């Protein structure tokens, strides 16, 4: 589906224009959607385990905003936003700082953690916006961070494949990450180096989340709700949940993308709008359910 007609018949008859459309636009878009959805959901899952909090996710821990800061710095220092290492580095440092912060403060209620994360993210975002104003780069920034799959073509999205090795590493470390999720003394008792596992987790989360915001844009709530839905039905065994989380995350983004393309066809709305609306609703439902469970 898209503005230009693409029929299966023209593909079967090997119409070169149709194939070109498929390879350069449709297929990249599909792959980008699937990879972004899966990557961000896995990032949320890992984040929730290492921070021992069900409401932690790249969007509630400052990861996304720190990646934006990295982008801004890269724009300022190198004249373009292409310094990947800088974006990853700021995202990793910011997320690590946040995880250390919440580990050093004992919260009476788990809901404080995402609130602090959102505040932390907002502070970073203000700094980024300030820099952007100062150097007249506000447009670059909003283009960069607003999620939209419509401008993804062949050659633009390949970096998202980084989610694949990240997912594999997550799978290999799944048991360790789960043990860390139960507690520091629990993990140490099993002979694990707690700090090391947390750092590995943060690096994985930051890279996956930063890549998605770089290529696609912000997909709010995705990393939050998908892992929670899976955990509700399947428990918290990371190894078992990983494939399902990736799958559900990819499906949610795919559906939201389809809706955003149909609703004002032949134009498109940014997919982040739908994810925000649906994600926000699911988030509130999860909150209420949790409250009910606590009583």
């Amino acid at each position: 589906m898209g503005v230009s007609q693409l029929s299966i018949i023209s593909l079967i008859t090997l119409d070169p224009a149709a194939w070109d459309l498929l390879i350069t636009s449709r297929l990249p878009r599909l792959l980008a959607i699937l990879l972004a959805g899966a990557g961000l959901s896995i990032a949320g899952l890992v984040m929730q385990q290492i921070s021992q909090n069900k409401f932690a996710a790249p969007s509630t821990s400052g990861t996304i905003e720190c990646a934006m800061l990295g982008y801004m710095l890269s724009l300022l220092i190198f004249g373009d936003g292409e310094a990947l290492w800088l974006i990853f580095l700021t995202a990793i440092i910011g997320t690590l700082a946040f995880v250390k912060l919440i580990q050093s403060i004992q919260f009476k209620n788990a809901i404080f953690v995402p609130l602090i994360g959102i505040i932390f993210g907002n502070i970073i975002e203000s700094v980024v916006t300030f820099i952007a104003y100062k150097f007249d780069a506000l447009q670059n920034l909003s283009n960069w961070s607003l999620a939209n799959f419509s401008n993804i073509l062949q050659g633009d999205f390949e970096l998202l494949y980084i989610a694949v090795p990240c997912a594999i590493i997550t799978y290999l470390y799944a048991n360790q990450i789960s043990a860390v999720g139960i507690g520091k003394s629990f993990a140490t008792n099993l002979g694990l180096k707690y700090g090391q596992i947390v750092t590995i987790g943060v690096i994985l989360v930051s890279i996956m989340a930063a890549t998605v915001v770089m290529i696609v844009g912000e997909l709010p709530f995705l990393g939050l709700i998908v892992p929670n839905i899976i955990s509700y039905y399947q428990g918290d065994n990371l190894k078992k949940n990983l494939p399902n989380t990736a799958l559900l995350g990819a499906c949610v983004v795919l559906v939201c993308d389809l809706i955003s393309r149909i609703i004002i066809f032949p134009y498109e709305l940014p997919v982040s709008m739908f994810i925000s609306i649906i994600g926000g609703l699911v988030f509130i439902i999860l909150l209420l359910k949790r409250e009910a469970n606590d009583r």
Partner: protein
Amino acid sequence: MIKVENINKQYAGKLVASNINVAFEKGKVTSIIGPNGAGKSTLLSIMSRLLNKDSGNVYVDGTELEKWATNTLAKRLAVLKQSNNLNMRFTVKELIAFGRFPHSQGKLTDTDHQVIQHAIEYLDLVAIQDKYLDNLSGGQKQLAFIAMVMAQDTDYVLLDEPLNNLDIKHSLQIMKNIRRLAHEMNKAVVIVIHDINFASCYSDNIIAMKNGEIAIAGNVDQVIQASVLESVYDTPFKVVTLDNQHVCVYY
């Protein structure tokens, strides 16, 4: 044997462990008792590398704690604190499987499955093995964690307040199983415990601590005496002997 020599530890200028010397043998249950803030949990945490000491040495099977690779030590010594995140949803069996991690690094072998199954049967958890921890009662949860420690199959088992928040029935069940671990499986079990009567009736040795120091360490007959406990707890005590067991009355 675990041997603790001249351990000192300060927290914010306050000595929480001062010059502690003590040893723990296999095949025995040792209870650490004492008032709040006496340093019981601190000692347990230092012995199990969860907390760094300021000075002194801890020897596990003759080797200093810091010389042990942490994953090798995990096959000799298991520790259970009360600070676990119980929001995580794992089934009882999944939790127990974590105990095998030091042995198989997460890839469960046939032996691992046998050990896990044995722990489940030994602690009578068969009926709830596939239930999620957050749906269980406090006693069942505690038993599941003890089963995990059992599956870890270590010579030394250190438990921090295993009876915390448990009712009488579950407390009895836990203490009986702790005794079985020590006497039937020849483990050294060390527990931090507040209930003196459980300590008296189910331990072989008792260590009483006060103000970061060991007030007295010895067998049950030596420690459970009115004069000793009165000085440890600053409270009048009466010790009566019923069916060869010492019971304290302090109400």
